[in-house]
């Protein structure tokens, strides 16, 4: 039975920039524990001779030619922007966390 603590959920929420109320934290902690528990059942059937896989189909080297394909117009691109200024998305400042 995996243990999911409220503290872990709080940390995840912080990483995802989601503000959780105490009530939400409590219910999400229980729900997440259940999910992790269900997923853990997979480990019971996965024997060591089953390699970890990130893709269901054994394929490699699927490439695209380096040719330009028309994308979105500026208006389309910005249509979902919470705020815009000119042709830019406008966002609140967050102290440097660039990748």
């Amino acid at each position, binding site marked *: 039975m995996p243990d999911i603590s409220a503290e872990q959920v709080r940390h995840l929420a912080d990483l995802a920039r989601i503000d959780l109320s105490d009530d939400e934290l409590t219910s999400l902690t229980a729900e997440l524990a259940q999910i992790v528990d269900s997923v853990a059942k997979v480990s019971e059937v996965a024997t060591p001779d089953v390699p970890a896989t990130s893709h269901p189909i054994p394929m490699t080297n699927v490439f695209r030619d380096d040719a*330009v394909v028309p994308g979105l117009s500026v208006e389309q691109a910005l249509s979902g922007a919470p705020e815009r200024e000119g042709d830019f998305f406008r966002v609140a400042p967050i102290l440097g*966390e660039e990748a």
Partner: protein
Amino acid sequence: MAKAELMDYERAIELFEPVLGFEVHVELNTKTKMFCGCANEFGSGANTNTCPTCLGLPGGLPQVNHQAVESSIRLGLALGCGIAESSRFARKNYFYPDTSKNFQTSQYDEPIAHDGEVTVELESGRRVTVLIERAHMEEDAGKLTHLGTTGRIQGAEYSLVDYNRGGVPLVEIVTRMIEGAEADAPEVGKAYVAHIRELVKALGVSNARMEEGNVRCDANVSLRPRGSNVLGTRTETKNVNSLRSVERAVRYEIQRQAAILDAGGTITQETRHWHEDTGTTSAGRPKSDADDYRYFPEPDLVPVAPSREWVEELRATLPEPPAERRARLREAWGFTALEFQDVANGDLLDAVEATVAEGASPAAARKWWTGEISRVANARGATAGELVSPKHVSELVALVENGDLTDRLARQVLEGVIDGEGSPSQVVEARGLKVVSDDGALIAAIDEALAAQPDVLQKIRDGKVQAAGAVIGAVMKAMRGQADAARVRELVLERAAQ
């Protein structure tokens, strides 16, 4: 922000051994982005090169750019790396508006290239080997412009986002720890980044313009007290984007950290921002908690498994290594170290080489490219190579050597060529700039000038030869500068004696 205490550099090196590490991001010059067909273009209107995939909209599905993989493998090979038999992409999760996907598609446990080394040469001639841990493929993030009081991230009121750059292919090259650089540490940093820039340019995989962010450097610096074998805490200075800044940023961090450690303080493991204007770094976020990226394999992409045949095919396309090329050219051209440095630092090796191939002497090619052409390029904010072709420079050199043009006239002709008036001969023709080599025309002008200045004529006849200058000046003016001054002088003295 409070100004940091700095220790005298020599003193810092006496007390501590600097340990370095670099992460260099190279933007590839593919036509399209890493995972979608949007144009990879610098300077387009904001948010004009986006699609559902690079914006992370529902339904967008990434597809790997074949050319980007090929460029990455070639770069890996040029760094002396092994190329993975199987390599996969991973999601690096983080929530920041420079990506609207909330993750960067990168590589984590299976990078395309690993374990290489490059040797850089310092100005003293000292050679330092830098071990490469890995080079992996990833995508660039969008560009944020922080608006507010300072224009910097600190104190910004809001930020504007342009996602054109989001998804542009990058190769991130990560070094292993560099020890033993000692007092040369700042120069080692500069030489290493210069080496990478030169390499990607020679490979043709990147435009390699640091001022446009094609090559960006994060510099890790830590200090180890002399006599200790415990590594110090490191800081990572982000986005150091010129060669000179790499040198300055490393030096600054050594001096700053030394002052803190010497005063009994501790270094915080953190990201630091480099400020080009003041030559200082300032604290960004602390490193420990923010580095929780929850990497996991990218489920929308299948592994890249380059066949050994493909890798060997690509290895065969590698250019002559830049350092070897430099040695070969310097030898062939017979330049002094200083002359050669002039050409190399001005990014003019290709131009001079091509001009020599067109028939000009190395000395003349060097003179024009590092002199007048570079001067005009500076004045116009352009690069020398885009102003004029090697073929035209070679033609100009030939016109001067044949005596058809003086240096002064040749500069005017060059200006015409740069302004698109045609080849040097065409400009000479159109502007009527040829040297007047017809002695008859010169003698007529000289006689006229001597007649106008009888006192000067008398002085020359009295043996005061330097007085001839006034007459030569008048003749050159009459010829609108299109005469060979040495020949005019000869003729003036001849005529005065008669």
